[in-house]
C-alpha cells in the first residue's frame, strides 16, 4: 500500500498558486527528502498530507485514507515547530498529552531518555534551549509509534552535534521500517538522510529521483573566471550565471560565471586546451543557484549530463 499518495494536487492561496498539479507517491519504508528553496510549496504539501488543509483539486491519501479524517492520522507522526510548544506546560505533560491521542505509545520515560531529555521532564518547555525544544519536537512525532513520519525542516538552526543526533534518531526510526517524508532547504540534510529526493520549486515538482541522480544535478560548482572566449558552450558547463559585474579588463576579457558538475575537470580541460583565463575562482553553488537550472524554462531537465 502506498503510504502517502498525492495525485494531481493544486492548492491556491488567493492568487498565489502554492502547489500546481503535484503528484508524489511514497511507499512503505521509503525515506524521501523534499528539497526546495523557501516558499517553494514544501510546507503547503506537508499541510495537505497531515490533514491541516484541503487541496483545491486532486487527491491526497494517507495510509489509504483521507488525511482530514482523524482515524487516518493514527499512523502519522508530525513534529510541532519548536517555537510552538506550550511554554507553560512541563515536558512530560506535553509528551503525555500528545501520546494520549494514540492507541499505542512509547512510555514517556523511554522516549525522554532516547532523546536525552530525562532531566528536563519536570521543566516547563519555555525553559528549554533551542536544541532541546527541537529534540522534544522530534520526540513528540515518534511517541505514537507512527508508521509514517513527516519532518518539516527538522534541524534548521541547530548546531552540528544536535543535528547529527537528530539525524541518528531519524535513521534509527527508518531502520526499524518507518516511512519518512522530510523537507529541507539544506542539501546537506537531504544528502545525509534521504534515499529519494523530490525537488520542488514554485509549486511544481522539478525532479523526483534517487539521491545520487539529484545530487549530480544540483550539486553544482561555480567557476568564475575572466576570459575573452565565450565558454558557455564548453563541455561540462551546465549553464552560465550572472557573476559580479566586472568591467572588461585591458585585454578585453569578460568575467564569466560557469556552473559545472565537476569544476576540477573543467579547469583541467581549459588548461589543456590552452584557453587563456585569469582570476580563477571556484566555489560551491548554493541550492538556490542549483535550482535555477531546473527552474529555468530554457534549460532542458535532461540537460544536466551535457
Amino acid at each position, binding site marked *: 500500500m502506498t503510504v502517502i499518495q498525492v495525485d494531481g494536487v493544486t492548492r491556491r492561496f488567493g492568487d498565489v498558486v502554492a502547489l500546481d498539479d503535484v503528484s508524489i507517491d511514497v511507499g512503505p519504508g521509503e525515506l524521501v527528502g523534499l528539497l526546495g528553496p523557501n516558499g517553494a510549496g514544501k510546507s503547503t504539501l506537508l*499541510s495537505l498530507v497531515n490533514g491541516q488543509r484541503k487541496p483545491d483539486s486532486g487527491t491526497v491519501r494517507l495510509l489509504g485514507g483521507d488525511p482530514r479524517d*482523524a482515524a487516518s492520522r*493514527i499512523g502519522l507522526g508530525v513534529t*510541532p515547530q519548536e517555537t510552538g510548544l*506550550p511554554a*507553560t506546560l512541563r515536558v512530560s505533560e506535553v509528551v503525555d498529552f500528545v501520546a494520549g491521542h494514540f492507541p499505542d505509545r512509547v512510555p514517556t520515560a523511554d522516549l525522554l531518555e532516547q532523546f536525552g531529555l530525562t532531566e528536563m521532564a519536570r521543566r516547563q518547555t519555555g525553559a528549554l534551549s533551542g536544541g532541546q525544544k527541537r529534540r522534544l519536537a522530534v520526540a513528540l512525532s515518534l511517541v505514537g*509509534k507512527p*508508521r509514517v513520519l513527516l519532518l518539516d525542516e527538522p534541524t534548521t538552526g541547530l548546531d552540528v552535534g544536535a543535528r547529527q*543526533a537528530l539525524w541518528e534518531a531519524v535513521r534509527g526510526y527508518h531502520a526499524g*521500517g518507518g516511512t519518512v517524508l522530510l523537507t529541507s532547504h539544506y542539501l546537506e540534510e537531504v544528502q545525509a538522510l534521504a534515499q529519494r529526493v523530490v525537488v520542488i520549486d514554485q509549486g511544481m515538482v522539478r525532479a523526483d529521483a534517487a539521491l545520487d541522480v539529484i545530487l549530480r544535478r544540483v550539486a553544482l560548482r561555480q567557476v568564475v573566471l575572466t576570459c575573452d572566449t565565450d565558454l558557455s558552450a564548453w563541455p561540462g558547463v551546465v549553464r552560465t550565471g550572472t557573476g559580479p559585474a566586472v568591467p572588461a579588463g585591458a585585454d578585453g576579457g569578460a568575467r564569466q560565471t560557469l556552473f559545472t558538475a565537476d569544476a576540477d575537470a573543467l579547469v583541467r580541460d581549459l588548461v589543456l586546451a590552452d584557453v587563456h583565463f585569469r582570476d580563477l575562482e571556484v566555489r560551491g553553488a548554493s541550492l538556490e543557484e542549483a535550482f535555477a537550472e531546473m527552474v529555468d524554462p530554457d534549460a532542458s531537465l535532461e540537460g544536466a549530463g551535457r
Partner: protein
Amino acid sequence: MTTAPQSPAAAPTSGGLVTPLRMTWLHLRFQFLESVRIPMAVIGNMLFPALAMAFFVVPQQEVAQNPLWATTAVAGLAMFAVCSASLFSFGLGVAEDRQLPFDPYVRTLPAGPGPRMAARIVNSAIFAVLGLLPLIVVAWLFTAATVTVLQLLAGIAVILVALVPFVLLGMAIGYSMPAKAALAVVQVVLFPLAFAGGLFLPPMMFPAWLDAISKLTPTRAARDLLDQALTGTTPYAGAWLVLLGWTVVFAVLAVGAYRRDEGRRFR
C-alpha cells in the same frame, strides 16, 4: 541521546481512535493546566464578578437590602460574568491559540473537533463555577440576597447549561477570524446581548418592543431560567426552547468554522 531505534509499528496497529470520552479528558487536562499556569488570569477571572457586585450592587442599598431584588441582581451579574468569561476567554482564546504554531500541530493529531470543543466547554464551566464562588460570598455577606441550598445548586446547574451556547458562539467567532478581529466582534456581540437580555436592567423596565426582542436572545432566556431557579419566578414560555435553539445554532456555526479553518493564511 541514545539512538535505540524507535520501532515503528510495522504491522497496522490493532487499536483504533482513542475513545471520545478519554480524548475529551485528555484535552480538558491539557487546557486546564494551560489555564492555571497563568495564575493572574485565573484570579482576575475569579474576582471580576465579585468586584462588579461590590461596586454596582452593594452600594445601592435599596437593591442590596431587598431580598428579591438583590437575588435578581446577583443572578444578572452571575450570568453576565459567565457570558463574558465564556465569550472572552474561550472565543478569544481560540483565536489566540490559532495564532500559535502548536494549534496546527494539535490538528494533525488523530482527534476531531468534538473532544477539543467539549473540553473547552467543560474547562469554561470549571472556571465559571470558580468565578461564582467569590460572588456568592460577597452577595451573602453584604446583601440581603437569600437562596436555599437547593436553589443555589439549581442556579449553578442552570448556569452550567446556559454557558454552553456562549462558549460555542465564542468558538464560532474564534475559529472564523484573527484574534484582534475576534476581540472587537466579541465586544460588539456581548454588550448588546447582555443589555437586551436584561442582565444590566431588569426586563420589567423594557418597552414592549424591546421585551419582544429580548425574549429571543439567549441571554434573556438564560437570565429568566436562572431567576426561576433562584427565586421561583416563572420564566416566559419558550425560554428553554430559545436557549437550546441558540445552542444548536452556535454549535453548527462553531463546527463549521472549525472545519473551514486551516490556520493562518499567510504565504
